[in-house]
């Protein structure tokens, strides 16, 4: 494990380490984070490439490397990684059956002051449309590094989503497995990645089961079916677009009567700047907003 203060920094440090450790690894950048990758770009000029500000070509170049047996790590700001070159991800990687990791920075509204051009709350939902895509949403830098190392060469394409928000404590996480954080009977709350700490604070004193998910795809359907509380309500708390998790939840719980509630980022343009905390509050995604939503569900 390397040190790093944020998930973004840890992602960059881990990618640079993987370049050093594994001669199959390549890093393809589109100008973003080139400062952080400065040493790697100098140390591995053949396997660390900055293509400039051209995201379609960034993904295509990475696919070309993968066609030759290299293992690419592709990185830029979320909307320019996920939305702008989506067809390249879908075809060059998904259709061609290649492996590689797409590491974003600035999920949902981390770049608050940049405005909506730099926001991408729909990133996970969009990436889930790509055939074979694994989606990993860690809650701490240590979890990020563990999941990054576990997936980068496992034969799949992976979307790795660092965020500014983190949980304080890391948990034992793994790809394809959810984690039971606390047990209760009235409802089940599924918290994803950096939403865990505020969700735990929100349900303080409530009789609910809290499950923790970092592996959105593959999703641990068996784990959810096994660990779900007796109460009929299942509530997802996601740092991305509201409702994104719903298909996995309904599929996993198809054999029992369930009421589903999604707490996540709304699909609207919020024309405000400020801080991530400001946006969390405005969208009801801070501890108090989440508590109010879950309380309303339990009061039904």
């Amino acid at each position: 494990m390397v040190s790093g203060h944020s998930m973004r920094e840890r992602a960059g440090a881990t990618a640079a380490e993987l370049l050093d450790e594994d001669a199959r690894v390549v890093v393809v950048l589109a100008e973003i984070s080139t400062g952080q990758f400065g040493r790697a770009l100098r140390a591995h000029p053949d396997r660390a490439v900055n293509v400039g500000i051209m995201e379609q070509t960034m993904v295509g170049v990475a696919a070309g490397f993968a066609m030759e047996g290299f293992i690419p790590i592709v990185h830029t700001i979320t909307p320019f990684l996920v939305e702008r070159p989506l067809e390249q991800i879908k075809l060059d990687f998904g259709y061609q059956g290649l492996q590689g990791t797409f590491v974003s920075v600035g999920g949902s509204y981390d770049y608050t002051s940049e405005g909506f051009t730099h926001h991408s709350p729909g990133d996970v939902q969009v990436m889930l449309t790509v055939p074979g895509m694994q989606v990993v949403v860690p809650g701490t830098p240590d979890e990020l590094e563990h999941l990054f190392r576990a997936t980068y060469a496992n034969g799949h394409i992976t979307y790795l989503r660092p965020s500014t928000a983190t949980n304080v404590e890391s948990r034992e996480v793994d790809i394809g497995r959810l984690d039971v954080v606390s047990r209760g009977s009235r409802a089940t709350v599924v918290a994803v990645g950096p939403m865990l700490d505020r969700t735990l604070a929100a349900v303080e004193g409530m009789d609910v089961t809290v499950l923790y998910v970092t592996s959105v795809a593959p999703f641990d359907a068996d784990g959810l079916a096994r660990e779900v509380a007796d109460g009929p309500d299942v509530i997802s708390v996601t740092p991305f677009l509201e409702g994104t998790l719903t298909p996995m939840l309904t599929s996993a719980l198809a054999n029992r009567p369930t009421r589903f509630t999604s707490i996540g980022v709304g699909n609207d343009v919020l024309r405000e700047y400020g801080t991530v905390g400001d946006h969390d509050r405005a969208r009801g995604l801070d501890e108090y907003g989440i508590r109010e939503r879950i309380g309303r569900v339990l009061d039904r």
Partner: protein
Amino acid sequence: MERAVESRTIDLAEVRRLMARATGDEKHDESSTSTLDALAVLYGDVLRVDPANPSWPDRDRFILSKGHGPVAYYAILAHLSFFPEMWLDDFMEWGGKLGSHPDRELVPGVEASTGSLGHGLPMSIGVALALRAAGRTEQRVVVLTGDAELNEGSNWEAILLAPALGLTNLTLLVIDNHSSSVQMGPWDAKLEAFGWSTHVVDGHDHGALRTVLTARDELRPTAVVADIPEGEW
């Protein structure tokens, strides 16, 4: 910088017979036949490939970027025994392996699954970089686009990038059958201005195609504009 010319007999009459064998409602006749001479020269005289071992690591890489009109491509691959000729009978049929755009997972000898325009050239840069990273300095990457395909902006990202990376192992072959509805050429002047070593040849002239496709600039990637007169296939 030139290297020894490959020599493999491509019987064009036989290739045309194989093309006719590909039954079905082929929608891309012009785009298919316009590539025939260039493909015959590439596979006959330029590309080092091994039909018995399509993934031979020391092979040259060819990517049909446009994907459209692959019948001439399929016919030449079948002619060279990359796959059985009988596959052509099931062109575009349920259960067949040959679609109207090629799939690398289904067809031996096909390097890239293409059909959506503007993907092949960026991928070719990645392949060229990978060959360089692997120390395969002799191997070449040839990528074929149509002239109308050059409308796609992703190509111009890649056209900007390849000279900046000094990819002397990359050749862009533009089959210019003047199919772009909006006239955006001349392609050669634009490619030259972007830093490519650029040649214009008659797209039916095998000798001229052979000369420019075997040439390799010492500093720049190579672009070949193969002109097919408007109205000709």
